[in-house]
């Protein structure tokens, strides 16, 4: 299993070394160096990826597919949008050159510098500008370079974007706005390039928050966010940009928002996560089956706000146990909301207290990242505890 990840990463690296000579991208090399898998020395082994990527099956219902990694599937979604929607514009820091993670490569050359353009370094301005463009009819797709940098724009998102429709009595809205941002841990991102701020935005009615688990999902969900008539925040797990490779449909397609997906059916424990953590939980599910004979049901929540209560609760009614896992700190993380809701809805069905396996209540650490991450062993322990309760 681990070998599979290594293969993907090596494959990505070799392509990268051809591509980056002239491309100049801090994100690209960040990823290039991230899950270094050489086992030669202790220091390097420490940085091995904490998950095994499990690709989605090849989709058949959307026509021709192509092998793409996560950033290429994002580019493909943006490409489809720019070509079909003449009002669509893409802007953000360095996006004209392709962005630090290469998500917008080639789009300026294809669609013109009036539709794909760089902004100054001013996140609050980027989002505020996007709201204005969206309210006046443009399909505005803004990129914030890292989810960690979204906080200067927090006011614009929470107070302006989310409440526009409500406070104008439905006269104005910025539903055409989509904000994309790389999200989550990356192996060595330290304090300001690793955070998972979805819970901050989950406290804010009026916006949608979406996080995909891989390339195929990313494209469909991003296209849904772009067409959705509500402002959406689309967080992209940056560790998967190159590590995740799948067959992705070339044409436009959408995957519905606010619908969780049961990736694996099971009878004993429900495991809920989103983004990168899905791949950790899938491995945990295999471990539980193999080592404990425990059957796990794995659910990808996909949309954090508004979230699919029904799918999760139905599953917990069946299994009687729930584990929610995310990278963000445990206190006040979105797992708390899920846990509380499930407790209310499924109290009499619960066989054990609901488990949350999350990041520590500390800032995202620099060299302690491997300890901080809610890895498969921590999740596995939690399952054992629930089973033996």
């Amino acid at each position, binding site marked *: 299993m681990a070998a599979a990840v290594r293969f993907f990463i090596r494959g990505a690296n070799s392509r990268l070394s051809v591509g980056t*000579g002239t491309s100049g991208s801090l994100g690209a090399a960040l990823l290039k160096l991230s899950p270094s898998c050489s086992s030669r020395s202790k220091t390097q082994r420490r940085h091995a990826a904490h998950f095994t990527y499990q690709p989605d099956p090849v989709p058949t219902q959307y026509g021709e597919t192509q092998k793409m990694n996560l950033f290429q599937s994002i580019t493909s979604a943006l490409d489809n949008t720019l070509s079909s929607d003449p009002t669509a514009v893409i802007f953000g820091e360095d996006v004209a050159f392709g962005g630090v993670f290469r998500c917008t490569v080639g789009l300026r050359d294809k669609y013109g510098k009036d539709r794909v353009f760089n902004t*100054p370094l001013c996140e609050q301005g980027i989002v505020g500008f996007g709201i204005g463009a969206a309210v006046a009819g443009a399909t505005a797709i803004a990129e914030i370079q890292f989810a960690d940098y979204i906080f200067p724009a927090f006011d614009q998102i929470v107070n302006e974007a989310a409440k526009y429709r409500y406070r104008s009595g439905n006269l104005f809205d910025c539903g055409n706005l989509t904000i994309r941002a790389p999200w989550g841990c990356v192996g060595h991102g330290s304090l300001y390039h690793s955070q998972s701020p979805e819970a901050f935005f989950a406290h804010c009615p009026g916006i949608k928050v979406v996080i995909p688990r891989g390339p195929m999902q990313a494209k469909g969900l991003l296209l849904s966010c772009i067409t959705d008539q509500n402002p959406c925040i689309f967080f992209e797990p940056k560790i998967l940009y190159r590590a995740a490779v799948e067959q992705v449909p070339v044409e436009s397609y959408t995957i519905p928002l606010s619908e969780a997906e049961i990736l694996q059916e099971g009878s004993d424990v429900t495991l809920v996560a989103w983004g990168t953590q899905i791949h950790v939980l899938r491995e945990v599910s295999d471990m539980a089956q193999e080592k404990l004979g425990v059957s796990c049901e794995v659910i990808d929540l996909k949309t954090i706000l508004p979230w699919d209560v029904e799918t999760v609760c139905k599953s917990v009614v069946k299994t009687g146990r729930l584990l929610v896992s995310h990278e963000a700190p445990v206190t006040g993380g979105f797992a708390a909301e899920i846990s509380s809701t499930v407790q209310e809805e499924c109290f009499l069905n619960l066989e054990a207290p609901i488990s*949350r396996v999350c990041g520590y209540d500390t800032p995202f650490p620099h060299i302690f990242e491997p300890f901080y991450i809610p890895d498969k062993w921590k999740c596995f322990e939690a399952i054992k505890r629930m089973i033996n309760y």
Partner: protein
Amino acid sequence: MLTNISSLLRACAQKSGAAAAVSVRSYSDFTTQATFEIKKCDLHKLDEAPATEVVMTREEGLKYYHIMQTIRRMELKADQLYKQKIIRGFCHLYDGQEACAVGIEASINMSDHLITAYRAHGYTYTRGGTVKKIMAELTGRRGGIAKGKGGSMHMYCKNFYGGNGIVGAQVPLGAGVALACKYQGNNELCVCLYGDGAANQGQIFETYNMASLWKLPVIFICENNRYGMGTSVERAAASTDYYKRGEFIPGLRVDGMDVLCVREATRFAAEHCRSGKGPILMELQTYRYHGHSMSDPGISYRTREEIQEVRSKSDPISLLKDRLLSNNMASVEELKVIDVEVRKEIEDAAQFATTDPEPPLDELCNHMFSNNPPVEVRGTNPWAKLKSVS
């Protein structure tokens, strides 16, 4: 003016004792000080200007050379260690901009305050951090200047407030520091640095307003290295006259590749602040040789020729070296001795930074709150508890 040289610079000269020893034989043959013609600053809302003729003593010249070489070599070593994957994560190098840090530091006191963004290694050194501690921080080791917990962007020492990761976020902090200086009436000031990219952030303008309104002793310094990440200043700023962007705040545009220009302008700005006239803004025109961070090769948005031209025509270290040599203020051999000494210091530091142990795991939770006795921190699940002390 010369009395204002910071004590650090003196300390550095003492460190270069070996160099002094070599020069003893021929000391009397050297010119002890010389007058230099420096580039005129552009002015905004100022009646007076910094001098265009300045005096530099031999002793000062050697100090500046030593510090600038140390910063340059330290950054090149960091580059090497990064490529060996010994330094991980984010790393923004300062080589090319050395004259800014050294020139500023030469005209303020160690009791003054300084805050900058993430390109912080040079300032950490000029503010009194040792190469050893800086390198160990880069590699995330116990002996690092922030106990190995911060890494490249987060370095701190006395009167140096970092080392801040978010573009532009340090500028309001600098004004706050200046308010404290004013309130305490100790005649100290705060040097608040940011880049040309950060100059477009809204909070910078909020800070200009507050600083001017309350006449705070703050020197805003925009280190304009021509590129905000991968976007050149012309493509990001409606006005690239960064020294005028404080509108109601007087400004100076300074050649940031000449340590004497920076020193003279900073001396002028510091006097302005200390005399109670409020904030002043300086734009230092400089250049970074490396890309924005380690993963940016730095040549996709500018040409190799451009970088080469700056290196050959206006390198801050070469400029100082030429001045020292052409005015008979130092000998080639003497400067070589300094180079060897610097290289040794860097090698020793790198050795330390690669062998020093990592901080113990307890450190993960420490220093989150001010607390005594220790508080419990939730671990990965609500019942796993860890201790946090500060």
